[in-house]
């Protein structure tokens, strides 16, 4: 494999002209994308971009630091409600409200990180799961948060730029996603990121080497929650309307599934995982409209299953993907990519 000789080579983004070329191609594609496709696909892209942000944040916690979180929908909700309320009630501009809401989520992440210091495995899973459920319940019962009726997102105006269509929002979102992903990459390649990885691999050994476990574990929770909060704040403006029923346990599970399917502890893993699962999610909502497969499923449902429950096939698909990934390729799609690369590099042998 390619050997790194110095720190600079490790953090370098553009390592060769080829990489530079493809980066430019990627950026140009991202910028031209909304002008080529229909409105629906711009919406899909926005939806995926938000999930990428959250999945990247969760990957920092699960993939790099080796913790477990089944409560990221809670941070997501905090970010969404925080942004909307800071804008509507406190009159903050969007670009200030969003990071503030992210910081609030990070604060909650820090708080959840404190008990998590002593917990692992199923104990941590149930604690984070309980946190996610509690947040949703609390939000659903308080009038400040609009209760069960939910809240409408205010109009989004950044300086002179009024962002009111999906297409305009796309540029804002893509910019933020790219920035946040680059931020994640830089974080992983620094001392902090190496501390996270050390904790994941052997926490006691890391401690003896002088890694401050208390600091870095809570930091991982806080940063991860910050990403989820930012994602939530942006999601409020994709939906334009938020209510507590959106932020369910199923959402937390889907975030975890994205990270696991994409590949734990890799930078591109969550991007691919979020892209694949969100696309599938949107496709499978109207499963009967898929050509051929839809007709076949309809006859199958009519004769053996029920036609009203046909949308629940998405659970079967997601569940099977999660099980299959864990059984056959625990590194996720990133692992598949690594093996393919290795196979072709040494091809005739």
């Amino acid at each position, binding site marked *: 494999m390619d050997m790194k000789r110095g720190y600079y080579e490790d953090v370098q983004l553009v390592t060769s002209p080829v990489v530079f070329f493809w980066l430019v191609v990627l950026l140009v594609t991202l910028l031209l994308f909304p002008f080529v496709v229909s409105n629906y696909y711009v919406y899909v892209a926005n939806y995926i971009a938000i999930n990428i942000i959250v999945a990247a944040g969760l990957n920092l916690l699960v993939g790099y630091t080796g913790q477990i979180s089944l409560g990221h929908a809670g941070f997501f909700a905090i970010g969404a409600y925080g942004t909307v309320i800071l804008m509507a009630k406190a009159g903050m501009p969007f670009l200030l409200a969003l990071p503030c809401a992210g910081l609030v989520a990070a604060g909650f992440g820090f708080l959840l990180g404190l008990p998590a210091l002593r917990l692992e495995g199923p104990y941590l*899973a149930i*604690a984070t799961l309980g946190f996610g459920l509690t947040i949703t319940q609390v939000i659903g019962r308080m009038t400040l948060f609009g209760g069960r009726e939910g809240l409408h997102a205010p109009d989004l105006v950044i300086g002179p730029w009024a962002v009111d269509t999906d297409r305009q929002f796309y540029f804002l979102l893509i910019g933020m996603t790219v920035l946040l992903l680059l931020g994640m990459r830089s974080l992983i390649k620094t001392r902090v990121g190496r501390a996270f990885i050390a904790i994941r691999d052997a926490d006691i050994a890391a401690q003896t080497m002088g890694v401050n476990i208390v600091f870095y574990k809570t930091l991982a929770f806080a940063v991860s929650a910050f990403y989820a909060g930012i994602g939530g704040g942006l999601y409020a403006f994709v939906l334009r309307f938020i209510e507590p029923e959106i932020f369910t346990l199923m959402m937390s599970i889907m975030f975890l599934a994205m990270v696991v399917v994409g590949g734990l502890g890799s930078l591109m893993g969550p991007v691919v995982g979020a892209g694949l699962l969100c696309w599938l999610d949107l496709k499978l909502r109207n499963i009967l409209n898929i050509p051929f497969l839809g007709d076949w499923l309809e006859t199958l449902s009519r004769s053996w299953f029920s036609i009203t429950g046909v949308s629940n096939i998405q659970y079967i698909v997601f569940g099977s993907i999660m099980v299959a990934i864990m059984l056959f390729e625990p590194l996720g799609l990133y692992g598949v990519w690594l093996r393919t690369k290795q196979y072709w590099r040494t091809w005739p042998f």
Partner: protein
Amino acid sequence: MIDFLQMVVSGVAVGSSYALMGLAMVIIYKTSEVPNFAQGEMALVTSFITMMLLTTFGYPVWLAFCLALVFAAFLGAFLEFAVLRRAKNPNILGTIVITIGLEMVLLGLVSWKFGAEQKTMPFPIGPYDSFIIGDIFIAKLEVLTLVSALLLMTLLFFFFKYTRLGLAMKATQQNAVAAKIVGIRTNRIMMMTWAISSVVGATAGLLISPVIMHPFMMWDPMLKGFAAAVMGGMTSLPGAVAAAYLLGIIENLFGGYVSIEFKSVVAFAIIVLVLCFKPSGLFARHYVKKV
């Protein structure tokens, strides 16, 4: 006072179903270190199969229930054999993801087959049949739940203490390699553990189904049962049972005296608090990792 007693009584009744779910999860976790998130949905499948046997095929109740429990045992054994055993040395996150995946598959199958709307289970005892002692209403179903929970617990206690199979399970859990050396087929033991656990969970499912029956009915009992199991220490059967009753009673008292709105989440708040002070639960010895 009457209110208080009434709340405690319903707390005990709710606690019984949590206790059954908690027991089922502890049985699996003890032997294989898998926190089984699919437990609730395994019970869900069994309940819906029972309903199908009763309504579509018109089997008598006793036969349907016996068949359901047999089915539950086979389902548990099958899942262990077909899925969990195929995972090569999964870490704890891996097992959580696998069981959540299984949960979603089973949930999807049930709601595809039966639709998402509320069903009624033709159970011999209705959810509102009750009798009155003093001024306290006690639903017959609650008594049945309590009795079956206690019965199952006693059976499990004797099973683990005196039977060959139970002892083999204990041996497998304490040291799988040593168990193999003395001639225990640990794979088979694992499968049987899943079968037994599935039967215990299915009992809880069958007892919940007269009250509420739709594809998401097992989420709350499963999560609360899991919470109880964690609170009890995840490896201790009596611990899980005690914690389940504690959670059920506290939940009901909280709903009665403090706030009915937050009743369903108070269990998780308690869990987080308990874990802050006793990270391995109330009834398990704290596990110290050796380097």
